[in-house]
């Protein structure tokens, strides 16, 4: 085993060596370094060919037409382009937008910005399993609703929203539907030919590609219009100007190509590892899974170890990289807004750890994690006055705390 162990694949993934190799061939003088927009010489033509191949590979994984793929700098930019772009284009039809409280900040903060511009946004609660209640979604729709943005896979708890049903409701009500799919390609089957989705954001670095590159799917039939946010040379059919980063694009294409080939076996393997990890924890006292376990990507396990604070647990697990919903891990001192939106108590949100496994995680690593987590949870519980009280049968919800 190579320490520290990496169990934070939802934060980012290493670039697959096969991807890195292809990228390196697009940089140096003897590589394909040309500007794909150069039409007058082979340097440009060669680069354009690679970009076209990458576009086809990205489109193939999600069963879209390559012409529907717009390159961006990452999922954050894609979210901004989709939401602001559609809101601005369709604002004459209405100014109401629907999204979820558990969305990524790239969606939430973009919506906040639109609120400042005069749009109205409904931020919907989710059920305690993290999934959207379709009736609540229907109820939130108004005459002037123009856009809904719902994430496919949640970054913290890994739950998979039913985007097909949500999209159908959007279609019935003539609402543009954007899906933030930063976390889902290669983990969940995506068939955009069939799915009622108008706009979908992708990222490369969550799927063993490089950071700094992403894409936005913009549906052609029926055609969805967005207003460009980046102006310049009119690249990407005017939707996103800027010289195409050939090496990044090639990396994303190769990452998506590999994912298409390997996702079935990889997900099966990850599912077994996740099962192994949870089997290692589930007989412990006061351990809770956050989010639905069934509608969830294979590599994610988000667990609260009650009466142990998440950051101190991470500090104890010093030879492994995990993340926590604990407030102490953020500058704001607020615990995870995602876990709170599930109705989890602040205590359980503070006590959560997120393990995300991926392509290079092994069973041996998982076994090490189980043993180490059990040991450290036990140690920290010995240090915890809350554990003492729990063991003495005190109901913590009845205690008058001196909050600060």
């Amino acid at each position: 085993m190579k320490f520290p162990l990496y169990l934070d694949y939802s934060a980012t993934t290493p670039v697959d060596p096969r991807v890195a190799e292809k990228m390196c061939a697009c940089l140096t003088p003897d590589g394909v370094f040309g500007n794909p927009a150069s039409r007058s010489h082979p340097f440009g033509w060669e680069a354009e060919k690679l970009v076209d191949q990458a576009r086809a590979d990205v489109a193939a994984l999600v069963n879209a037409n390559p012409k529907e793929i717009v390159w961006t700098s990452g999922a954050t930019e894609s979210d901004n382009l989709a939401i602001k772009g559609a809101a601005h284009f369709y604002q004459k039809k209405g100014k109401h937008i629907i999204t979820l409280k558990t969305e990524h900040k790239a969606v939430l903060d973009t919506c906040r910005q639109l609120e400042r511009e005069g749009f109205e946004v409904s931020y919907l609660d989710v059920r305690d399993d993290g999934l959207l209640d379709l009736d609540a979604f229907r109820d939130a729709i108004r005459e002037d609703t123009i856009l809904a943005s719902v994430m496919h896979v949640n970054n913290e708890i890994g739950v998979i929203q039913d985007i097909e049903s949500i999209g159908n409701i959007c279609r019935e009500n003539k609402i543009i539907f954007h899906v933030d799919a930063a976390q889902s390609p290669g983990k969940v089957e995506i068939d955009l030919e069939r799915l009622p989705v108008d706009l979908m954001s992708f990222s490369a670095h969550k799927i063993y590609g490089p950071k700094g590159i992403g894409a936005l799917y913009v549906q052609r039939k029926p055609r969805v219009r967005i207003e460009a946010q980046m102006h310049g040379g009119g690249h990407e059919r005017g939707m996103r100007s800027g010289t195409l980063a050939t090496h990044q694009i090639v990396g994303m294409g190769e990452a998506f190509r590999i994912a298409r080939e390997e996702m079935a076996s990889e997900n099966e393997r990850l599912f077994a590892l996740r099962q192994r990890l949870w089997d290692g924890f589930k007989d412990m006292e006061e351990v809770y899974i956050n989010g639905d376990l069934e509608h969830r990507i294979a590599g994610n396990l988000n667990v609260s170890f009650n009466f142990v604070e998440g950051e101190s647990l991470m500090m104890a697990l010093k030879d492994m990289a995990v993340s926590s919903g604990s407030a102490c891990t953020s500058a704001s001192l607020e615990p995870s807004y995602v876990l709170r939106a599930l109705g989890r108590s602040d205590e359980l949100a503070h006590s959560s750890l997120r393990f995300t496994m991926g392509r290079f995680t092994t069973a041996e690593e998982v076994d090490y994690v189980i043993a180490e987590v059990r040991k450290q949870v036990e140690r920290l519980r010995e240090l915890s006055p809350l554990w003492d009280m729990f063991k003495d049968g005190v109901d913590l919800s009845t205690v008058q705390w001196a909050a600060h």
Partner: protein
Amino acid sequence: MAYSDKVIEHYENPRNVGTLDKDASNVGTGMVGAPACGDVMRLQIQVNDDGVIEDAKFKTYGCGSAIASSSLLTEWVKGKTLDEARAIKNTEIAEELALPPVKVHCSVLAEDAIKAAIEDLHGKQAD
């Protein structure tokens, strides 16, 4: 966030973890913080007949800095009179542990804990 060596040292080898008899007349218990805020500190002190703290114990639910702050505090209060212990300032704890600004509240909690423990003791002795 990177922790100072002193925080890590206290976190890995916390001093004086445990429980004293909260009903004893010479034991004062201070419990501060709230689970919802992510930290709860329980500090107990035991005084001798001369009003000197002869033993101190803590248990803390919280981040590494909160655990280190309470561990350090138990070291500091032992052998001190109640007045001396009451005079301990959170800034001294923060300085000793080199706490970053976002963790200063952990030292505030420790100061609150010793004050609460002394108050509890006074309450008992006034009875």
